[in-house]
Every structure is written in C-alpha cells, then in structure tokens.
C-alpha cells in the first residue's frame, strides 16, 4: 500500500496515478507508436527519483553506452563496427538489450546499472520477426530460404505496459554532451514468443505493476534482480498480430496485415 494525496491506495493504483500525472504534463511525448531500436532514438522511460517513492518520465537514448566509451566517435565505432590501423575488423556491439541471466556476472558492462540504475521502459507494443521456412511443394520438406513475417505484440487491455530496463549516463568528453541511455532487459521467450521470435527465442521482460514497482523502488539483492529481470509474462495475456513488411515506413505501423501463406502457430495455447 502507498499514499496518494494522503489516501491509502494499492501499488498498482499509485503507479497509475503517478503515470497519469506525468502523462498529463507531457502527453505528446508519450504518444509515439514506433521505436525500432537501431535508430538509437529517444524513448519514454520511467526513472525513480533518488530517495523518494516517486518517479520522472524522461527521454533516454535506446542503446546502452558502456562506461569505457568516451565520445560519440568511439560510440559510432562500437555501434557500427570498424577497422583498426592494422586492418582488423572489429564487429559492432549491440547494446539495445541486456540478457537478464547474464547482466550481473562480474565484468559485464550492465552489472553496475542493474545493481544501481534500474528503470521502466514505457511501451504500447513491440515488434518482432518470425522466420519461416516454407515447405517444398515437391518434397514436402522445409526449403532453405527463410521468409520473415513481422508481428506487433501487445498486452491485452493495456494501453501502455512496462518493460524492465537499466540505464547509464553518457558524457561525451570532447563536446560535453550528456545523455542518459538504456537497455531493455530480456528473458527467455514464453510459449507465444517462442513461436514468433523463433530464431533467438527471447522476449523483453514485461513486468506487471507489482513487480514494476519493486524493480524501480525496491532495495533488491542480486538474486531478486535476476528473478525479476527473468520474469516471463503470461502469454495468455498477450496479443500478437501480423503487420505489413513495410511497417517501418507506414503511417500506421501497427495496422493488421494478413499473410495467406503464413502457417498457424504450432501451439496448444
């Protein structure tokens, strides 16, 4: 239980009221449909105020910047990959997501943030690709060529929901630019997401209100951080809908789109 305006309310109600407060202030900023990650754009993130049971909804850059990165030039090399003076290619390092099972291990770039800087990423839905190998009409066996189908995944009866996140401030030592950056925590895919994100079988850690509250306000042990970070949202509370393959360029990227050749899920959901 918490207090809002002196009235005793549940944690769920408290989060709802505080979020409403911020939304009324910055509603346009929350009203954004599509974030693709690879454009490293700004997203709405719930960040707790230090020492208070309150939070701010702020904008952060999606793409966690490790502490050893000193400027945008180094960051660009990290994100895109680069050849060093000896001609050796260093592949890109993608830091959009941090694996819950790995992030606390000693030496991991996410460890400090997972311990001290946890946040919630506000989402109205997310996008994932399903990879399907069609069956040969001659042999009935799967063909080598893969067809990719995009899905928009939402939470039933939730306009917005929370994904577990961790954040890290970045200061460009050349220009003085400061920006907060974040990664979305991921967990093992549930039975629905296993069928959609069937290459990696991962999904974002979506948190119900009670766990979202604990994630940002709780003083958590490493074990509890890992437990919450690995939480697997109930697939029966999720909806998934195919969308156009050109959704990134669409004015309405979440508009349903049916594919006649798409096999049904192999599920007993």
């Amino acid at each position, binding site marked *: 239980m918490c207090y*809002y*305006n*002196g*009235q*005793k*309310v*549940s944690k769920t*109600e408290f989060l*709802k*009221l505080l*979020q*409403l*407060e911020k*939304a*009324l202030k910055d*509603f346009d900023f*929350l009203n954004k449909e599509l974030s693709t990650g690879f454009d490293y754009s700004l997203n709405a993130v719930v960040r707790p105020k230090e020492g208070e049971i309150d939070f701010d909804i702020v904008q952060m850059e999606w793409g966690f910047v490790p502490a050893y990165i000193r400027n945008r030039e180094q960051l660009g090399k990290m994100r895109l990959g680069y050849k060093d003076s000896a001609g050796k290619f260093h592949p890109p390092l993608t830091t959009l997501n941090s694996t819950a099972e790995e992030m606390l291990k000693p030496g991991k770039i996410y460890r400090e943030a997972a311990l001290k800087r946890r946040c919630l990423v506000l989402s109205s839905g997310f996008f994932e690709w399903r990879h399907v190998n069609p069956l040969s009409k001659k042999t009935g066996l799967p063909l080598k060529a893969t067809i990719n189908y995009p899905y928009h995944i939402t939470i039933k009866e*939730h*306009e*917005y929901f929370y994904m577990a996140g961790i954040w890290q401030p970045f200061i460009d030592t050349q220009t003085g630019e400061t920006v907060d950056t974040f990664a979305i925590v991921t967990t093992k895919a549930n039975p629905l997401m296993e069928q959609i994100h069937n290459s990696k079988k991962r999904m974002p850690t979506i948190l119900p209100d009670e766990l979202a509250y604990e994630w940002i306000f709780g003083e958590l042990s490493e074990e509890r951080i890992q437990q919450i970070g690995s939480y697997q949202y109930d697939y029966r509370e999720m909806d998934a809908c195919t969308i156009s393959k050109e959704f990134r360029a669409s004015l309405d990227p979440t508009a349903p789109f049916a594919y006649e050749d798409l096999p049904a899920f192999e599920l007993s959901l």
Partner: protein
Amino acid sequence: MQKGEAFKIEVNELALEVTSHIVNSSEIFRIVFSDTRPPLVVIESLTNGRPFWTSVPQGRQKEAEFFGKLIEEKLKK
C-alpha cells in the same frame, strides 16, 4: 482524447465547465472555474477497493473530493 461534450455545473456563485478525457486508458475530468482559481483535474480512484475522488497532480484533495462528487451527481442525472 476528449470524450463527449463539455458540461456545466453551478454551485452557489461558482460555475464549473467540465470536460472528460481519456488519458492512459483512464477517464479524467478537467474543471475550469469561473473564479480565479486554476483549472483542476480530478479522477475517481480506489482506496481499499472503495472509490474516492482525487486530484492529478496531488495537492488539491479537498477540492477534488468536493467537485468530484458534484460531477458524479451530474453524470447520474
């Protein structure tokens, strides 16, 4: 998103213009007063499973309870 038409409530010498909006799936009411006080946003929330009116943001609880009740009565009519 505004929901429906604005409506008016009069109490004593005070006139209230009320609009209803859906924000984050919740219905809120914005009240503009005929006197000099700033507009007030109220919402019906729950305490121990029982509804009560509160202001958003926090800080105007007494007004929220008073004007929230008036809105509730008006909507029942």
